[in-house]
């Protein structure tokens, strides 16, 4: 449905453009055929500029209708422009043949202003839409290029890059010098008070510090845990294995006896 609408729109735009060219051409041919001059008959002048005026309006309308992805109020602007142009041409056709003073100030100004406004609307709308579409197209192309660049890195490459950055952050950026500063033995040049000979008071708090195991796990990915169940199971297994082997020895002796009896 959309496709059909698009086709009709394109057909209509083409027809408008072609008609415009034909009308303008007709106007020019007519002017040539009647040898149009400034002093020609007002009717001839009116017909010539009527054809050319309508033709130009249709050409601009056709161009506007051919624009892909038009902006908001596009059709309203085109319609207004076309109507203004038609009013201008019709007024010219009506007023010009009557000569002065009907075709004089201020009527000439009104007609010219109305027609010029229509042309400006149509031409300006076509220009604005074209420029905006070009900007959007460029932005889309750049975005596609960027996305293609991102896609060109595989997950493995990204992981390797992250790993390299992390390693670099742990070596180059840590900023700690490896210089080993050693101090000479130096005696105090002051006497210590009695209080300093006593040991420092300590605050003791119950704290299992589970963070140590978590930190080891975060750093190495390995978790060490005491598992008494595992230890006892290992012990039981060891005992069972030892008992089993003793039993096997007994059975072996017995087997030897049975074999002995069998021989006889």
């Amino acid at each position: 449905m959309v496709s059909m609408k698009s086709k009709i729109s394109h057909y209509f735009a083409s027809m408008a453009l072609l008609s415009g060219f034909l009308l303008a051409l007709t106007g020019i041919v007519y002017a040539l055929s009647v040898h149009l001059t400034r002093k020609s008959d007002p009717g001839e002048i009116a017909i010539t500029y009527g054809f050319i005026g309508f033709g130009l309006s249709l050409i601009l309308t056709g161009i506007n209708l051919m624009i892909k992805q038009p902006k908001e109020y596009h059709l309203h602007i085109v319609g207004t422009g076309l109507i203004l142009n038609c009013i201008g041409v019709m007024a010219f056709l009506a007023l010009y043949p009557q000569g002065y003073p009907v075709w004089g100030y201020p009527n000439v100004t009104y007609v010219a202003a109305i027609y010029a406004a229509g042309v400006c609307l149509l031409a300006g709308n076509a220009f604005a839409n074209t420029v905006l579409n070009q900007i959007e197209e460029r932005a889309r192309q750049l975005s596609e290029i960027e996305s293609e660049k991102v896609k060109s890195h595989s997950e493995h490459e990204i992981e390797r890059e992250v790993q390299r950055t992390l390693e670099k952050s742990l070596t180059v950026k840590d900023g700690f010098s490896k210089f080993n500063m050693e101090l000479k033995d130096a005696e105090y040049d002051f006497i210590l008070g009695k209080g300093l000979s006593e040991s420092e008071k300590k605050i003791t708090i119950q704290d299992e510090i589970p963070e140590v195991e978590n930190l080891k796990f975060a750093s190495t990915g390995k978790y060490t845990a005491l598992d008494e169940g595992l230890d006892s199971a290992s012990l039981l297994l060891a005992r069972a294995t030892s008992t089993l082997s003793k039993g096997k020895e007994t059975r072996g002796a017995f087997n030897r006896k049975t074999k002995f009896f069998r021989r006889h």
Partner: protein
Amino acid sequence: MAKGLDVGTMNIICATKGNGSISFSQQRNAFLEMESTDLTKQMLDNGRVLYTQRGSILNVLGEDAFKFSNVFNKPIRRPMKQGIISPEEKDSIPMIKLIIERVLGLPEKKNEILYISVPANPVDNQLNVLYHGKTVEALATKLGYITYPIDEGLSVVYSELSDSNFTGIGISIGAGMTNVTVAYMATPIVSFSIARGGDWIDEQVAIATGMAKERITSIKETDFTLGSEHEIGSVQGALAVYYDALLTYVLQHLKRKLSETAPPDAEFQVAIAGGSTRAKGFAEMFENRLKETDLPIRISSVKKSRFNTSGTDSKDPIYAIARGCLIAALSKEASLETAPSTENQPPKYSSHKPEPIVVTNKS
């Protein structure tokens, strides 16, 4: 047994693991100069006050220095300034040495591992932390420890962000500096410090209100709650203003640093620690400012170490850094124990480097 040491501008704290417990030994990193008389010395000895004597001068150390400072209205001297050893204080290194020896003690075994918190280089100052770090390391090495420096912000991550697999932002707001580390799976991505902290707030409030800085510190630590309503001209009001200014400053720098990197697409939990976060209402103010900052990463929640006024909670924000250092030390010790015997000798003076993370596509 491994240890963790937090060398802060205001406090030096050592964390040691016991049997299902942690022991913290702590000392104020400050001293006060006094005239020496027989009576004064006798009084100090009877009160078990820590002091040194050089000629006719007594230097009272630690917490007592603050108490005497308030009583005698004398300025205390600080071996450290803006997170590093103060170049303006000639007695800074002997005093730090004395305090470190006292809180750290001797190693219980040969080649005992010690992780020491070191600030990152500040982004708003020309200070360089290398000399400070090396000096503190050398002091501990002299006692017989195998030392490893660890970023202060990362130690907050180790201490507080275990639940989120050590992925998040560790912020330590201390007295001299504010340290920030953004970590992903225990690996630091962004690490920086700001040469402003609790001392900067005290200085600005002292200038604004005309009171002694030591008095401001005392009010801040004992009688201050961050809120929106304060009396006109009160110290508390000025403190609130400068707390807000500091937080805004820190978060703006964090936003800028994050915009310079490409952090991974993950949820980041924020952990705040350090002495300057002990003020009541701090976490709420921080959360509000964080929401307003609009960082270029997803923040899941803000976590503040639980503060217990009895001072017997290892989750006190002041202990978080030492605890983080201890976690790193225990982890390192365990990894060395499990490593082959040829690698059993730990490399000296190498920084804490978590094992490289292998990122795999889970899908």
